[in-house]
């Protein structure tokens, strides 16, 4: 019987706010429409309160023309 280790939590950060402003001050509503989610979901992702699915993370990155690692980063807390 091996010892079960609880994984240490990941601290997720993102560059969405900076990228929105670098892309003509794109609003959260515009980003939401282009990624087919609600504005509240973009607010939650941007604030780090909600970890998006891989698909949504790719959609956000592609909207900015960036690779996913330039938008989302994770480190062990």
């Amino acid at each position, binding site marked *: 019987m091996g010892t079960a280790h609880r994984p240490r939590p990941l601290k997720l950060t993102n560059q969405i706010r900076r990228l929105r402003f670098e892309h003509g001050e794109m609003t959260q509503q515009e980003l939401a429409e282009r990624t087919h989610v609600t504005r*509240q979901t973009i607010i939650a992702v941007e604030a780090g309160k909600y970890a998006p699915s891989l698909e949504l993370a790719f959609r956000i990155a592609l909207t900015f023309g960036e690779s996913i690692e330039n938008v989302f980063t994770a480190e062990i807390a």
Partner: protein
Amino acid sequence: MKRILGSSSLREQSVWATLAVTLVVYGFYAGSAWNGSAATDGGAALGLLIGSVVAQVILLIILSIALALLTPQEPRDERELRIEWRSAQVGYVALVSCVLLAVPAIFIWSAAGAAGGPSPQPVLIGHALFLSVIVSEVLQGATQIILYRRGA
């Protein structure tokens, strides 16, 4: 309230409306069942039950139409689906817990009745089981609102 309406999606507003209607309609139901003839009379209890469900459906239709007219339509997204799944789990656990508590209570009550004490009345058992459904519905709605307010 204005701040919540302005910062919430159509789905979150629908949850608020459903929870409010449930509390009002079934608060009235509970008050009537507790004080009126519906506490012991099966016919009155059935009338109260049907009346409450019809009132709930009518109020929810009116509120849904009003919300759809006042709030822009948005696609249901992954975060909202996740919130629905997590709150449905809470509602399911609450429903099962209430029923698992109600069943042995009814058996114990029946045993007491067989021993000469007060016997369980079918109307009260019906009220208790219906209350289980309402409690789980309220907990599910409250969980949804907490998750929406927290972000996810």
